[in-house]
């Protein structure tokens, strides 16, 4: 019993530390001077807004559903579960009203693509941010 309790305790501590670490950074190209609020970020990632507030095309990229950053971003910024997002996009895709953002494999790939293209906006685990991109919001 005692052993089980200790184990439980460790597990709970382990879980909270995982949550605490998973801060999400929304990143753009370093040359992008737009200020952006969380509602605009959400609208861009849901395909409702197609340009940055300062003008210029905004093209979102997302990460694979299996990536931890995706879960965090969906629940913190879009306020939806993975299957709600999927059902949202299936309504648009199968009626010709929209196409979901391009999906890449991981944080490194998001940074690589964004550092080369000023129109892109993406999200990564905050700990993965490098100087090649600019952080415009953290959640």
């Amino acid at each position, binding site marked *: 019993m005692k052993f089980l309790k200790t184990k439980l305790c460790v597990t709970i501590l382990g879980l909270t530390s995982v949550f605490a670490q998973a801060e999400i950074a929304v990143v753009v190209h370093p040359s992008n001077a737009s200020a952006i609020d969380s509602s605009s970020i959400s609208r861009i990632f849901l395909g409702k807004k*197609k340009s940055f507030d300062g003008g210029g095309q905004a093209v979102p990229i997302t990460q694979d559903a299996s990536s931890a950053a995706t879960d965090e971003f969906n629940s913190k910024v879009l306020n939806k579960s993975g*299957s709600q997002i999927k059902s949202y996009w*299936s*309504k648009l895709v*199968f*009626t*010709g*009203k929209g*196409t979901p953002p391009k999906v890449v494999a991981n944080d490194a790939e998001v940074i690589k693509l964004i550092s080369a293209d000023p129109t892109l906006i993406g999200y990564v685990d905050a700990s993965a941010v490098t100087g090649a991109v600019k952080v415009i919001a953290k959640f």
Partner: protein
Amino acid sequence: MKNTLAAAIVLALGATSASAIAADTRINGFASVVAGVTTDEDASMFGYNDNISFKPESLFALQISSDLGDGLSATAQIMSRGSNDYAAEFEWAYLSYDINDSTQINAGKLRIPFYRYSDFLDVGYAYAWARPPQAVYSLVFSTFDGLSLVNNHTIGDWDSTIQGFYGSYDGSVDLVSDEDPATLNNMMGINWTVTYDWFTARAIYAQAETSISFENNEDPERLLNNGIALVGSIYPQVASDLNVDEDIGSFIGLGFAVDYNNLLVEAEFTTVDVEDSIVAKQEQYYVSVGYRFDDFTVYAITEHGEDTNEGDYDYSSDLPESLAITADYTVYPRTAYQTLISSQEETIDTFTVGTRYNFHPSAALKFDITSTKINDADAINVLSVGVDLVF
């Protein structure tokens, strides 16, 4: 039958790979596998009877969409329905062009946006229900050939979408048989949806010059056809006001939806009317209430539909009770007319409970029990279990 689907896919894939150098091509798909059964013998509903069947609501669909650049794209959706012996058919096929960031024009074979769920009626994964409420979603024809213009804009904190469409439909409806040949010309409509975070409201008006033939009437005595002919032989104008021949049909739909703190409330109200015809005025609504618990959603729906027919004029005073054609032959125009008119009246009440479980990121499992009562007949219960997926 499966070969037809395979052939269509190969053809479509072949066509895209040949031009893949220039175009960015996407392939998406969705599928539903649903088993259903009625709990009563000799009763059928939604295509099910008292033997478990997978055919009525199962379907597979593939969508191929090519982005040709500069806002131009071509999309085709090929669907294979169990109810159609899995024969593959083009459900949608259209070109679309983005005039600017907020306005898109589509041309080709498109979905008529009668209802809130019309556009993605077949994509079960996109909603919680096993099927959209059938007392309201009663118009069996769902696609048209023509143009659609969609504009998205914002009004303060509200997202607003206005769609206008124009085109025609040539196919069948189910009025006196399951397949009455029908033509809808000069079909036009406007559909407006506004959304504020957790709240959505929608209104649509559509109309079309409607013609429906009763030649497929399965009634062995063909009472409806003979009745109209008989009345018409004496009163041609009355027959013309019963037949559905280039008469203006109109559709009005109003709806709202709330998705607030996992509470889901939705309702739609619709009316269908074809003036100067035997077609009854149809009014129907549903109210659905649901709640989302993580991966589970539970819902209950109540539906009511009423088809009433009062006739276009007060024929009861215009038409004589009886008319002697010869000394031995008397007809009863008023009774004949009233019988024809009231043959189209119907009341339907439906109650549904069900649940959706997202057991996989791309798939949902659904259980549903629907009880439908038409006029004074005993209620017919349908149980269904299905899996919907998107890929």
